[in-house]
């Protein structure tokens, strides 16, 4: 028997051997299908034990739960899904916007001016160590339970990581590039906005993308605790009533939202930083 020739030991052992794009998609899709299949089996089994069970709903019950969230409520005429999406997204948008804005200002200033770095680095390093969820009581006390509180908790959660990423990114820029910009006639503001900022932009977009997950954690946790509308509130309320046919679709919406945001941020990065996507080092 002739042995198949391998170009390396790694390939012979199958370690990190490339597979086709089609195979990647098929394997990925099959993992999701297996999950759904296992859930179906579990649900059937549970309903054989208790026909009225709502903790592991059947696909039919799940459909009823989705319809319930989209239907107008008899008393108020409101639709849960619209109310919750608007509330959660506006809180996330304002909080993340504030967080990114403040972090940008802080990180840029710290990376450019040593005295700002000396002033802000110690408190920022300390605050980064406190989990924002542990600070919730402080935020409830200071800001009540309105939009201000949700925005503050998200901003507090993302600022340390974002600001430090920007600051460290700026510190990594080779001094020659800055000196060279000055020999090319750049002013201080041009060095900051035309030389330094574009160089850290792809990393900044990466970190913002990665911070959407933690921001959602802080927001949902706050909504679970004190919300009167929003995804966290609805999940808490419906899970108490054991209406898991509403809860599971809500979790799926969150996953879809996260996926959509991730794709959107990658698209932004491709548009704004083609050089980085092509393999250039920031």
């Amino acid at each position, binding site marked *: 028997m002739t042995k198949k020739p391998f170009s390396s030991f790694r390939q012979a052992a199958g370690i990190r051997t490339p597979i086709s794009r089609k195979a990647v998609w098929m394997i990925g899709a099959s993992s999701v299908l297996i999950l759904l299949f296992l859930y179906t089996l579990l649900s059937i089994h549970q309903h054989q034990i208790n026909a009225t069970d709502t903790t592991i709903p059947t696909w039919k019950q799940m459909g009823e739960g989705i319809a319930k969230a989209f239907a107008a409520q008899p008393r108020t005429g409101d639709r849960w899904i619209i109310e919750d999406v608007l509330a959660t997204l506006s809180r996330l948008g304002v909080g993340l916007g504030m967080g990114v804005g403040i972090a940008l200002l802080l990180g840029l200033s710290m990376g450019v001016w040593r005295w700002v770095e000396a002033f802000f680095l110690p408190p920022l390093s300390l605050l980064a160590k406190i989990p924002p969820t542990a600070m919730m009581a402080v935020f409830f006390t200071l800001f009540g339970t309105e939009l201000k509180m949700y925005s503050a908790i998200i901003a507090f959660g993302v600022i340390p990581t974002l600001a430090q990423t920007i600051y460290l990114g700026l510190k990594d820029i*080779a001094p*020659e*590039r800055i*000196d*060279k*910009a*000055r*020999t*090319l*006639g*750049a*002013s201080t*503001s*041009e060095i900051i*906005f*035309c*030389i330094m900022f*574009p*160089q850290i*932009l792809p990393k900044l977009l990466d970190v913002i993308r990665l911070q959407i997950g933690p921001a959602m954690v802080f927001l949902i946790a706050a909504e679970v605790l004190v919300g009167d509308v929003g995804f966290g509130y609805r999940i808490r309320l419906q899970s108490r009533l054991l209406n898991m046919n509403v809860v599971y679709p809500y979790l799926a919406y969150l996953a879809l939202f996260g996926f959509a945001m991730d794709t959107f941020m990658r698209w932004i990065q491709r548009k704004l*930083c083609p*050089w*980085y996507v*092509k*393999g*250039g*080092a*920031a």
Partner: protein
Amino acid sequence: MTTPILSVQEVSYRTAAQPILHAIDFKVGRGQIVGILGASGCGKTTLLNLIAGITHPVKGQVLVQYDGEEVMVEEPGPDRGIVYQAYGLYPFLTSLENVALGLKLSQTTIPRRMIGYVTRSWPHLRRIHLRTAEELLVRFGLSDAMDKYPHELSGGMRQRVAIAQALIMRPQVLLLDEPFGALDEATREDLQRMLLVLYEENLKAVEEGRLAPHTILLVTHAIQEAIFVGDRVMGLSRQWNWKEQGFSHCPGATIVYDKAAPIFKPTDPVDFERFVAQKDEITHVVFGGDLHIDPKTHCTFWSQVHSNHGYGVTRDA
């Protein structure tokens, strides 16, 4: 010689820990290519940074001729271009944008560009900048690299772009800090010949009674490169007769060698015979570690020039 384009006058520099440069004093004529040699860590890059205005001398001053006047160097400016071994290109700009960057930064400001977007004056000016950059890149044989980012280029191509980026500013002096140090031998020679083309343009300009456009200071640790590319070679060393001059500690590196180098044409072969004697002399004076070398003994460039009634681009002396 006409008024020197660059005068370094009794410049000394030291850090908190140790003295680096001592009483550096030399003049460079317009259109010269000066190879600056020295052992690693002797202060060659510091000297370039002082000329560029990135660091400031503890004593002495650097003067650059600008618009017919001698101006003291206080900070970096477009009249002194610099090219580093690590290229210093901006990764987020294509070759064309990198080369056009200096025109954008020196001729406009952020508010002017923002207003210019509305009045359409900036896009018009931008097109002119890009066209100028394109012409320079074509001249440097980089027609196919215009839209490529630095990481998509070879080391030699990157260094050509970096030199074009500096030259588009038409600097009075171009400072090259070991620009070919990271390149392979063939690419290195290719770029050395590119500098010889610039020198040939200088000679032609002098012949036609115009001002030579390119004055270059090339810091290198390769003796052969300095002799081949430069029309003059200077050597910086910490090993000189400082004890005999009354110092208890070395006060820093100083210029111990400054002589004319043979002038090569871009098409000339690298003829070792033509500079072997000078190479041996430099090896002894600059790298030999002789603590009895009097810095003045081997700094004879200007007397050589005057006794020969000019040399290379300085032949109108």
